[in-house]
């Protein structure tokens, strides 16, 4: 599993420790569908893991289990040394550690862009209004939307909204970013701008778990790729290897359909 992470700075002393540790996670929904059937993976710091697979294979469920949006039936999830259990405090810590970007953006429509990004900083991190706004402007500059701080989400294009959502997820300075089909709801001409922001983030050394249908992007940016089908990790390996010479028949079959 250990792929070399050729990212520049290596000053973190517990660099070898995985930041995301998942063991035998099972998740069954009320209707009896087994969305995750005993999945395990360790993800290192600064690693970008792309998760691909047919729809309904459990990609999103896996991602949603990582920050507690779904509660796994059994198994073990540890994020940056914090076990995801029923302890409220641990769960809150993990929610702060892991930023999430949704397919449908989920910006708060009644707040300006700036306020969307300020909110968690003020309420969760206890930042002052000025402090929060300064950080918000920095984040918006990063995603190229510094002039839209006072706009409402409905006034922005889909691509712009998703960039704001990324900035918002970054506002608590998370150690991990989870992307749940971040470009699937976008018009084709807007996909590029969102992928650019994600690419920059990966380059800066953010640990990322990316569920995506953008195979070109996945191969280019992913350090490792996971192919998931029917709730199981069929294949995990270096992205280039998985995409170019998959070992498993099912992976090859899936990729031949989408590539």
């Amino acid at each position, binding site marked *: 599993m250990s792929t070399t992470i050729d990212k520049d700075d290596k000053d973190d002393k517990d660099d070898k420790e995985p930041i995301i540790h998942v063991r035998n996670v099972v998740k069954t929904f009320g209707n009896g569908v087994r969305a995750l059937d005993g999945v395990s993976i360790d993800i290192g710091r600064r690693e970008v893991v792309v998760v691909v697979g047919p729809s309904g294979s459990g990609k999103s469920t896996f991602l949603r289990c990582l920050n507690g*949006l779904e509660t796994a039936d059994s198994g073990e999830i540890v994020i940056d040394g914090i076990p995801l259990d029923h302890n409220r405090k641990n769960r809150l810590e993990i929610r702060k550690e892991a*930023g999430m970007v*949704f397919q449908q953006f989920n910006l*708060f429509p*009644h707040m300006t862009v700036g306020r969307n990004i300020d*909110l*968690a900083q003020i309420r*969760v991190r206890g930042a002052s209004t000025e402090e929060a706004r300064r950080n918000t402007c920095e984040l918006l500059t990063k995603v190229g939307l510094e002039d839209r701080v006072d706009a409402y989400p409905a006034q922005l294009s889909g691509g712009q909204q998703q960039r704001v959502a990324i900035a918002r997820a970054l506002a608590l300075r998370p150690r991990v970013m989870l992307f749940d089909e971040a470009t699937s709801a976008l018009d084709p001409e807007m996909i590029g701008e969102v992928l650019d922001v994600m690419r920059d983030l990966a380059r800066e050394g953010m640990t990322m778990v990316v569920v995506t249908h953008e195979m070109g992007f996945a191969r280019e940016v992913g350090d490792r790729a996971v192919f998931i089908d029917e709730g199981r990790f069929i294949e995990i390996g270096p992205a280039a290897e998985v995409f170019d010479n998959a070992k498993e028949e099912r992976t090859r079959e899936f990729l031949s359909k989408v590539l």
Partner: protein
Amino acid sequence: MIGPYASHQRRFFSPLDVVLLALLAAMVVWLGPGLIRAGEYRWNWSVIWRYMVRYDPVSDRMRPNVLLNGFFTTIRLSIWSGVVAMIIGLVMGVLASRRRLLARLVTRTYVEFARNTPPLVLVFLFYYFLGQQITAILGLEQWVAAMDPRTARIVTILAAPPRQLPAFVSAVATLGIFEGAYLTEIVRAGIQSVPKGQWEAGYALGLSSRDRYRFVVLPQAWRVVLPAAVGQFISIIKDSSIVAVISIPELTFQGLEVMAATYRTFEIWITIALMYFLLSSICSWGARGIERRLARHVAR
């Protein structure tokens, strides 16, 4: 658009309209003789004016008399009941939207009880049973007895004369609890109209459950809740007439009193109907304005 409906709508009278007109004509023929006899009724509207305003020789000014005072009492009663109902509705509505079984059980029981009991029965129940308890717990009687004149004046303006305060409080509690059940449902529906993704985004950002309600969900639920809540307030105004049975001097009660003194049945009840109508239509006019404004807000 071209279709069976398009041509249908352009016609002036549909068969249904003809039937309705025929029914209306039949009613006139049937009730006509009675109406003509009623024409011999000697109207006396001056009674109404006398009971609306009176001349006060002490201050040398016109002052509101029983009917107008009843009108004001109805307004006060409605506002206080509306406030109580809104608080109950907000708390219970939030509880009803939670996943906890106990929270849902409590709110469900309350809503079903309040909605499936005639308000008149509730009034008696509260007045004779809970009303006494509430006023005792609040220490209302003692407070009223020890009240200085200035406080008494303020209380009279805001609620009711001190002497009637315990009954007024029971009436507000009854109406508030009764109407609160409807507001609970309105608030719950409003909360549930907010897309799930909004909750999830708030959760993922680390916001506490309280903050998710306060900053994310309730402000959005408000758009659905507000127009419906104003509509419910109109019901409160109309339903407030039932507390006449516990001698709250509101509009209907005063109407009964004036009728007992003058026997001018038609004049009094037509006047009172118009006064309720006036109050309610002002509110629904306001509700439409709010709705329009909120719609514009969303379309932004």
